[in-house]
C-alpha cells in the first residue's frame, strides 16, 4: 500500500484512492462542497485545494489519486489564500438569507465562511436575482439564489435514482440550477437532495420554516417504514420528532433513505394517539387505568386457554415491534399453549434501491422470535376463518397491519363471533373501534430495542423522546400480562430480554446491545436465507 504524508503525518492508504477521502478518514479535515462519498467526482467547487510537493500549482484533493511518497500540505499560506478566494467568489452572489434559511446551523457555506472566509465583503455590485421559493416537486422547493452550483443534487438524480430531473442550465456566471422542463423532482428519494445540498438551495417542504436546526437533539435509530431498516438519525426537540435524516451505513442504505420513510414520523406527534387503555362497557369504549385493562385482558386469556379442545385463542403479532417485545409476546403464547400465532404485514411496492415490499421494519424479526403458527395452530387467513366459525374466541391483535391486509368481510365476520378482541395500537384505528380491550402502543421513537431487517441484520433502535403519559411500552404490557399468568416474571428490560433471546434462539446467540453497535450486526448467513414476502 502506498504511503503518503499529510501535514507531517505518515498515512498508509489503498492505491487508487483519492486524496480527499483518505485525508478525511485519517482525521485531516479538508473543506469541500462538491465531493460526496457516494457520488462521482465533479471537482467544481475548488474548495479542497491542497499543496502537493512537486506540483507546480495547488491541486484539488478530491480528484488527486494518491501516489507512494506523496507529500501533502493542507495548512500552508497558499492553501489558505486559495480557500479564502474560493469562499469570496462563492459568496459574491449568495444571498444573506441565513436568518430565514432552514440550512442555517448545518450549512457548509456558513461553517467554512467562519473557518476560512474573510469577515468583510469587497463587492459592491448587486447580487444575482433569481427564482426563490420555486416549487420543484411535491416534497421539495428550490431557491436558485442560494445555490453554489456544486451539482451534488444533479449527480444524485443522475447516478443514484437515475431520474435526471435536475440540471445546471446556462453557462459561466449565468449558470443556474433548475428542474428539467415538465419534469418535477418527484422521485422516491427526492428529499435526499436537501441532505446533500451543502447550502439551503434545496429544502424539504416538510421541514421548511419549522425549527432552527441547532435546537434539534439527535438520536441514532432505524427507520420503521419498511423491511430494509435504513439507518436514520431521529431529530427531536421538546419530546416531538421534527424530522428524520439518513445515517451512513454502507451495508444497508449508504447515505440515502426514501421520502416515504423520512416523512413517516407524523404518527409519533399525532394528537389522535391513544393515551389511555380502553375497555368496552355497555357497548362503549371507556378509558380505564392500566391495571384494569390488563386484568380484563388476562382474565379472558386465562379463561379461553382452558377451553375444552385446546386454547381458543389467536394472536396476531405486529411487525412494528422490536425483537425484545415480540420475544415476550411469543413467551406469552407458549405459556398459554397457544399455537395459532402469526404476523400480519402490509406488503406493497418495492424498488431496486432501498424500498422493500414489506412495509414494516421487523417482520423478519417477529418470525425469528417464533411468532409463527405452531403445531396444531393455524396461520393468518385460517385464523380469521376459525374465528368466524366460532372456534377461536379471543383474538389478540398488535399493530394496524391486520386491518390493512385481511379480507375485510372475513375480518368483520370474525370480529362478530369473537368473545373478546384485544387490540394494541398507536392510534384509535377502525380495528380498535371494534375491540373489547384497547391497549395503547408506543412508536419507534419512544423505545429501545432491536429490529432485524429483511437480510437478517440486527440493528439498534434507541429511545429518542419520552412516552406520553409515562405509558408503559409494548414489552412491558406483555410482561405484565405474563406476570399475571406465570409467577416470577421480571419487568421488561430490553437489554436483559436480548440476553434471553441470545440464549433461546441459535441465530441470535451471543448478541448484546454492545455487539449490535451503531451499524448493526449481520446474523450468520444460514439464518439470513429467509425469503421476504412478495406482493
Amino acid at each position, binding site marked *: 500500500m502506498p504511503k503518503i504524508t499529510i501535514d507531517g503525518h505518515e498515512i498508509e492508504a489503498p492505491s487508487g484512492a483519492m486524496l480527499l477521502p483518505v485525508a478525511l478518514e485519517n482525521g485531516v479535515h479538508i473543506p469541500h462542497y462538491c465531493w460526496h462519498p457516494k457520488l462521482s467526482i465533479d471537482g467544481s467547487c475548488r474548495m479542497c485545494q491542497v499543496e502537493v510537493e512537486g506540483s507546480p500549482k495547488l491541486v484539488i484533493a478530491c480528484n488527486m489519486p494518491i501516489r507512494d511518497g506523496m507529500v501533502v500540505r493542507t495548512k500552508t499560506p497558499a492553501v489558505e489564500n486559495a480557500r479564502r478566494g474560493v469562499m469570496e467568489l462563492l459568496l459574491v452572489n449568495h444571498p444573506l438569507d441565513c436568518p430565514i434559511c432552514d440550512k442555517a446551523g448545518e450549512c457548509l457555506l456558513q461553517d467554512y465562511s467562519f473557518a476560512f472566509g474573510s469577515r468583510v465583503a469587497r463587492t459592491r455590485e448587486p447580487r444575482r436575482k433569481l427564482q426563490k*421559493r420555486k416549487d420543484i416537486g411535491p416534497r421539495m422547493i428550490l431557491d436558485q439564489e442560494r445555490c453554489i452550483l456544486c451539482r451534488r443534487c444533479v449527480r444524485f438524480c443522475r447516478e443514484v435514482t437515475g431520474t435526471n430531473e435536475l440540471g445546471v442550465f446556462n453557462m459561466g456566471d449565468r449558470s443556474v440550477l433548475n428542474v428539467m422542463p415538465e419534469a418535477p423532482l418527484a422521485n422516491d428519494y427526492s428529499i435526499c437532495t436537501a441532505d446533500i445540498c451543502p447550502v439551503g438551495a434545496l429544502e424539504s417542504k416538510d421541514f421548511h420554516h419549522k425549527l*432552527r436546526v441547532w435546537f434539534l437533539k439527535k438520536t441514532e435509530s432505524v427507520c420503521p417504514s419498511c423491511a430494509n431498516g435504513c439507518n436514520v438519525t431521529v431529530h427531536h426537540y421538546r419530546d416531538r420528532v421534527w424530522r428524520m435524516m439518513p445515517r451512513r451505513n454502507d451495508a444497508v442504505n449508504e447515505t440515502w433513505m426514501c421520502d416515504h420513510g423520512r416523512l413517516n414520523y407524523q404518527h409519533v406527534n399525532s394528537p389522535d394517539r391513544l393515551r389511555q387503555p380502553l375497555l368496552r362497557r355497555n357497548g362503549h369504549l371507556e378509558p380505564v387505568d392500566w391495571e384494569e385493562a390488563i386484568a380484563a385482558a388476562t382474565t379472558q386469556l386465562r379463561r379461553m386457554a382452558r377451553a375444552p379442545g385446546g386454547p381458543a385463542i389467536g394472536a396476531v403479532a405486529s411487525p412494528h415491534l422490536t425483537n425484545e417485545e415480540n420475544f415476550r409476546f411469543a413467551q406469552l403464547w407458549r405459556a398459554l399453549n397457544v399455537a395459532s400465532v402469526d404476523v400480519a404485514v402490509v406488503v406493497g411496492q418495492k424498488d431496486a434501491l432501498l424500498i422493500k415490499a414489506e412495509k414494516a421494519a421487523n417482520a423478519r424479526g417477529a418470525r425469528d422470535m417464533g411468532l409463527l403458527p405452531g403445531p396444531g395452530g393455524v396461520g393468518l387467513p385460517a385464523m380469521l376463518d376459525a374465528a368466524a366459525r366460532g372456534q377461536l374466541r379471543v383474538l389478540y391483535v398488535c399493530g394496524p397491519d391486520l386491518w390493512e391486509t385481511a379480507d375485510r368481510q372475513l375480518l368483520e365476520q370474525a370480529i362478530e363471533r369473537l368473545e373478546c378482541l384485544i387490540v394494541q395500537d398507536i392510534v384509535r384505528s377502525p380495528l380498535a373501534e371494534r375491540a373489547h380491550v384497547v391497549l395503547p402502543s408506543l412508536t419507534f421513537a419512544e423505545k429501545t430495542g432491536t429490529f432485524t431487517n429483511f437480510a437478517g441484520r440486527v440493528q439498534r433502535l434507541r429511545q429518542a423522546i419520552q412516552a406520553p403519559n409515562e405509558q408503559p411500552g409494548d414489552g412491558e404490557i406483555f410482561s405484565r400480562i405474563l406476570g399475571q399468568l406465570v409467577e416470577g416474571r421480571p419487568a421488561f428490560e430490553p437489554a436483559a430480554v436480548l440476553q434471553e433471546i441470545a440464549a433461546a434462539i441459535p441465530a441470535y446467540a451471543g448478541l448484546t446491545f454492545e455487539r449490535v453497535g451503531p451499524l448493526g450486526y449481520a446474523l450468520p448467513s444460514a439464518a439470513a436465507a429467509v425469503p421476504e414476502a412478495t406482493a
Partner: protein
Amino acid sequence: MATRTVSVRRPPPVRHGWLHSAGAILVGLRVTSRHFFRNLWGFIRRKPTVFTVQYPEQRLEFPNAFRGMPVLVQMDNGKERCVACGLCEWACPTDCITIFPAETEDEIERYPAVFDINMSRCMYCGLCEEACPEEAIVMSQNVEIAAFSRRGTLWHKQDLLVPVSKLEKRLQHMRRGYDR
C-alpha cells in the same frame, strides 16, 4: 486570680440637662423643617422644588443605554420586523423566548406565528437584542411587568409590538454599541 479594684471618676451631672437635649432635637429638626416648609411653600405655589417623582402619574425618561423589557419592532406596514430566525431564543440565558415560525407570501417570507416572552423570567440582559440580525427585538424603556397572575407575565406577539418610531433612540444607541 487576684482581683483589682479601679475607681472611676464620673463627671458631675449637668444642670438642666433636658434643656441641652431639647436644643439638640431642634438643631436636628432644623434641616427637616427647612425642607418641610420649603416643600409646603412650593406645594401651595404649585411649583414643587424637590426631586420626588409622582409615579405613576409622572415617569422618568431613562437614558438610551437603559435596558427595560425586550419588545418587537413593528414596521410601518404594521408587521413585525422579526423573521423568526431563533437566534434570540438561542441566546437567551433564561430561556424565556418561544418562537414558532411560519411562511407568508410577502417579500419577507418568514414571520413568527408565535412569539412569546415570559417576562417574569426575563433578566433584562439584552443578549436577545445583541443576537438579533434584523434589529427586530430591542430593549425598551418599559419596566412594568406587574400582572394579576403568572399568565399575565407571558407576553405574546401582539403585546410586544412597538412602532419603530418609538424605538428610534434605542436603535441608534444599538448601532453605536454593537459595531454594526
